[in-house]
């Protein structure tokens, strides 16, 4: 067996292993069961923390309506822009007393309603 072939096989195995760990474990990235709202929830970089926060949303929360509202919000802007617009306009929600931008609070609540935290 040529030395070059050994290196190629070992390398390919390594890449496959890393790809497998990435895809099928939470070692590099946390994986959540698919939801109909992943287009929204992928905007949350740390979804587990958002879920913990979102559980404290006490207002009535209709998942379908809120998702539609969030999609409308994100049709023309990203999350950062949206929450800065909320802050400037005073669109704020108290979650467990925390004064939060409206969009971020609703997105966190959506995560809590539709996903199970991995931690």
């Amino acid at each position, binding site marked *: 067996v040529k030395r070059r072939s050994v290196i190629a096989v070992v390398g390919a195995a390594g890449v496959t292993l890393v790809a497998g760990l990435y895809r099928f474990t939470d070692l590099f990235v946390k994986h959540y069961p698919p939801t109909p709202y992943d287009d929204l929830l992928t905007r949350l970089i740390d979804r587990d*923390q958002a879920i913990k926060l979102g559980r404290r949303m006490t207002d009535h929360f209709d998942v379908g309506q809120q998702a539609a509202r969030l999609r409308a919000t994100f049709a023309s802007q990203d999350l950062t822009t949206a929450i800065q617009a909320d802050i400037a306009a005073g669109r*704020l929600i108290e979650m467990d007393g*925390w004064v939060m*931008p409206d969009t971020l609070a609703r997105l966190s609540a959506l995560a809590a309603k539709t996903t199970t935290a991995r931690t």
Partner: protein
Amino acid sequence: LTALIDARTLPDGQVLTPDLVIIGGGPAGITLAMALADTKLKVLLLESGGTNFDPRVQALYAGEQSSYVALDAGRLRTLGGGTNHWGGWCRPMDEMDFEAKPWLPYSGWPFSRKALEPYYPRAQALVEAGPWIYDQKGDAMTASEGSVLPLGQGGLYTSWFQFSKMRGSVLPTQFGHRYEADLKACANLTPLLHANVTAIRLSHDARKVERLDVATLTGKHFTVTPRWAVLASGGMENARLLLASNDVMKTGVGNQNDLVGRFFADNPVPRDVATLVSFAGPLAPFYGSNQTLDDGAIMRATFAPTATFCRNAKVLGSLSTVEQAEELDQTGKAAVITTAIALGVDASKARAYSLGCGIELAPDPDRRLVLTGEKDALGLPRLKLNMRIADADFDRYRRTLVEMGRQLLASRTGMLRIEKRTREDWLRDWGHHHLGTTRMHTDPKQGVVDADGLVHGLANLYVAGSSVFPSYSASNPTMNLIALTLRLADHLKKVTA
């Protein structure tokens, strides 16, 4: 030197005839006595207590109350009055505090802050709070200690308290002890201790004060017949003495329009009202504790609403102070991480702090002192305080906190959690600032005293102290009432000349 005279040693039945009598030896009374030292007036200062605490004297304060601390708990009946237990917090009232607010009934003073400004430097000197720094130079003077928290554009800003100079490690300036020698040095002043005014006797036409009945707890009685009298007994006793002196005016002196004792106010000072998170790490030390500058000034930062925010959002004064560092719970950590990531801010060094506050209440005529049928050891009817606070008072402060939370997010410097939920949460601590019971107004139907402190309808009875504040501010009243008393002294110098 004149001595402090113990009224218990005077012959029974004596008649004293000063030009001007000051009833009460607290900060207002002592300030006024010293301010009149350069006049030819023969001044008599009557203080109910002695130079030290006496429980029998203190018991004269006892009364009834609802939803408030015991009436003999938040004040001290000794020479120096409330300064014997004050915290030394000083801050001038804001211009906005003097304004009549169209949305707030009974608000506004008969003059602007400009009327007090000439007297603030002297008041600052009397409370020994060092050079005048406050908001004019506070940020710059404390720059070596750290930076103020950037709040950006919005409703709140970092404002500054200064403190009455600490003596050793114990207490701020106590007027009785600090100025005892000065009182003794006033050649025109007779300071009389253990002298309790039990009645203000008016002329038959109810136009002027003719005499005061005075008694000691040892059973001595004597009379004072002054040309002018100044009532400076504190926010509760001023009203009590006026209401109880009802032989000529049946509803009480100055109470022809049923205003004496109404509009009582205090500053609620609830703790742990909110949690403030600073994303960048620890706040500058002047937020959480008093800092002594090189020039001796003692300063502490506070968060105050701007005049523009107060006007637009229809909120009143409040001063929120950082109390202590605290640990966040799991939800708190989640809120900080989620928000910081979304804002694109590194919050790995974030620190959390609890906030306390002092709140201004709206004037309320039904928050009032009335006399009861029970009498004290000198025969004076005791007081009952009907305390109440509107939900709107707390709602206004909550709106202020929400705005602060919004500003922290807007400036990407932190975030805020509002901790108080129920009404009872807010009602645990008081500033013991007794305000408003002989309110000042140019219209006799809306105030007990006029803009000079003269009781409406009377020629020679004035009221000094925070009982004349028609609306209240969140700033602690002591230095402000001293400035107002110095203004009264100037007025008295003119009218008695």
